[in-house]
C-alpha cells in the first residue's frame, strides 16, 4: 500500500541568516495525520524551519510545498488563505494581552467568520473545555500561569479546525504536571481532530513518547529521521550525543574561537 503524499514536502532547502547558512540542502517529508517532531540542538534552525513552513520567512532556494501550495510562489492572499488552514502554538503562547481568555479564543472566529454570537460562544467553550480551561474564560492572560496560557493558545489554535497544527517549543518552562497535560493534548487533539501535528522541541524523552516520526537536525541538514525507537537505537554519533545529552561530540561544547593559550597569553590591550 502506498503511503499518503506528504502534507509538507521540503527538498534541498537552503536558507541563511546574516550570511551564516542555517539550512544547506534540507530534505523533510511530513506525513498527514501524524505527530512529527523536529528536534535538534539549540541554534540548528528548528524555529526557523517553522517560520519557513508557515511563510513567515522565504527560502533562498529549494522546494517547499505545504498542503499542496508552493511557498516560493505564494502571494500574500494565498498565504493568508493557507494560514487559515493552520494553527500555531507559539513558545510563549502569544495571547493578545488586551483580550480575556474567551475573546482570545474567539479572535480568529470574529476576524474570519460572520457566525452568530451564540455559535461563537458554543465553539469557544467547546475548545476551552477540550483544553480543560472552560472555567478560566473570563480571566485575563496576565492572570494565567505559563501552562494555562499555553493551553489557551492551543484552544485558539484549534478553534478554526485547522488541518496542520504547529507547536514551537511547547514544553519550555513548564512544570511536570503542565508538561504532561500539553503532551497528552498534542496526541489527543491530533487523533480526535484528525490533524497533522508538527512539534519543534529539544525535550527528547517527552516528545518521543507522543511522536510518530522524528527528524533530528544538525549542521543545516537532517542528521537522522525515523520512528522514535529507531532513533533510540541509532549508532550515529550526533544522535547518540543528542539523546544522551553529552556535552561534547559532533556538536562541539566550545563556540569556535582562537587558540585558547594564545589568547590567554596575549596582552590585555590586544583585545
Amino acid at each position, binding site marked *: 500500500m502506498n503511503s499518503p503524499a506528504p502534507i509538507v514536502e521540503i527538498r534541498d532547502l537552503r536558507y541563511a541568516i546574516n550570511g551564516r547558512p542555517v539550512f544547506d540542502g534540507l530534505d523533510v517529508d511530513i506525513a498527514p495525520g501524524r505527530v512529527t517532531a523536529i528536534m535538534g540542538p539549540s541554534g540548528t534552525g528548528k524555529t526557523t524551519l517553522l517560520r519557513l513552513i*508557515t511563510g513567515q520567512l522565504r527560502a533562498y532556494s529549494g522546494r517547499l510545498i505545504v498542503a499542496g501550495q508552493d511557498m516560493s510562489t505564494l502571494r500574500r492572499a494565498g498565504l*493568508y488563505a493557507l494560514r487559515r488552514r493552520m494553527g500555531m502554538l*507559539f513558545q510563549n503562547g*502569544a495571547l493578545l494581552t488586551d483580550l480575556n481568555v474567551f475573546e482570545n479564543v474567539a479572535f480568529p472566529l470574529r*476576524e474570519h467568520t460572520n457566525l452568530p454570537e451564540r455559535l461563537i460562544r458554543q465553539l469557544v467553550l467547546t475548545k476551552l473545555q477540550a483544553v480543560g480551561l472552560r472555567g478560566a474564560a473570563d480571566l485575563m492572560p496576565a492572570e494565567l500561569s505559563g501552562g494555562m496560557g499555553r493551553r489557551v493558545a492551543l484552544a485558539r489554535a484549534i478553534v*478554526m479546525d485547522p488541518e496542520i497544527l504547529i507547536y514551537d517549543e511547547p514544553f519550555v518552562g513548564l512544570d511536570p504536571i503542565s508538561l504532561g497535560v500539553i503532551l497528552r493534548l498534542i496526541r489527543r487533539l491530533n487523533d480526535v481532530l484528525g490533524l497533522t501535528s508538527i512539534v519543534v522541541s529539544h525535550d527528547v524523552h517527552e516528545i518521543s513518547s507522543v511522536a510518530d516520526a522524528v527528524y533530528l537536525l544538525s549542521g543545516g541538514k537532517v542528521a537522522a529521521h525515523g520512528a522514535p525507537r529507531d532513533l533510540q537505537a541509532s549508532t550515529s554519533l550526533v544522535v547518540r550525543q543528542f539523546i544522551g545529552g553529552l556535552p561534547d561530540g559532533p556538536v562541539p561544547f566550545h563556540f569556535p574561537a582562537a587558540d585558547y593559550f594564545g589568547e590567554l597569553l596575549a596582552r590585555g590591550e590586544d583585545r
Partner: protein
Amino acid sequence: MALGDVSRFLLRLIVATPRVLLRFESIVRQVFNSGALSLVIIMLSGLFVGMVLGLQGFQLLQRFGSEEALGVAAAIGLVKELSPVITALLFAGRAGTALASEIGLMRATDQLSAMEMMAVDPIERVVVPRFLGGVIAMPLLAAIFSVIGVYGAQLVGVQIMHVDSGSFWSQMRAGVDFRDVTEGLVKSAIFGVACSLIAVYQGYYAVPTAEGVGRATTRTVVSSAVMVLFLDYLLTSAFL
C-alpha cells in the same frame, strides 16, 4: 529611521485605512486611549502655559501702555503656536511612548506574529487604529489646550493683574480671525500625523527585546520633538 522606509510604511497605513474605517469602534477606542488619557496633562499644561503667558504678556505690554491687548496677544500666541507645538510635544511624551512601547511589546511577545499566523494583518488590526486615533486626537487636544490656556491668561491678567475684563475679551474677539484658528488646526493635524506615524513605526519595527522596546520609546520622543519643531518652522513660513 530612513525617510523612504517611513514613507512606504505610511503608504501601507493609508492603503489599509478604508478597511479599518469599517470598524469604527476600534478607532474610537484609540482616540480614547491617546486623547482622553492625555487630557489631564494637556489641561494642566495649558493652564500653566496660559498663566505664564498672561504674566509675561502683561509685563511686556504694560511697558507700552497697551495691557488691554493681553487677550489678543495670549490667544494668538496660543492658537497659532504654543498649543499645536506643546500639545504635540506632550502627546509624543505621553501617548507616543505608550503607542511605541505597546506595539513594540506586542512584537517582542509574538502577538503580532500570532496575528499573522491567524491570517490577520497586524497593520490593519493594531497599527492603523492607533495611528488614526492619534491623528484625530491631536487637533482636539490642541483646541482644549488653547481654551484652557486662554482661561489661564485671563486668570492672571484679569483676576490678578486687573486688566479690564471687557477689553481682554473684546480685543481677543476682534483680533483673532479664522485664519489664525485654521493655522493652528492645520499645524496640529500635521503634527498629529507626524507624531503618530513616528510612534507606530518605531513600535512596529522595534527590536523584539526589552532593550529594543526601550530604544524605540526613546526614539519616538526624540524624533517626534525634532520633527514637530522642524515642521513648525516650515508651516509657519508657509502661512506667512
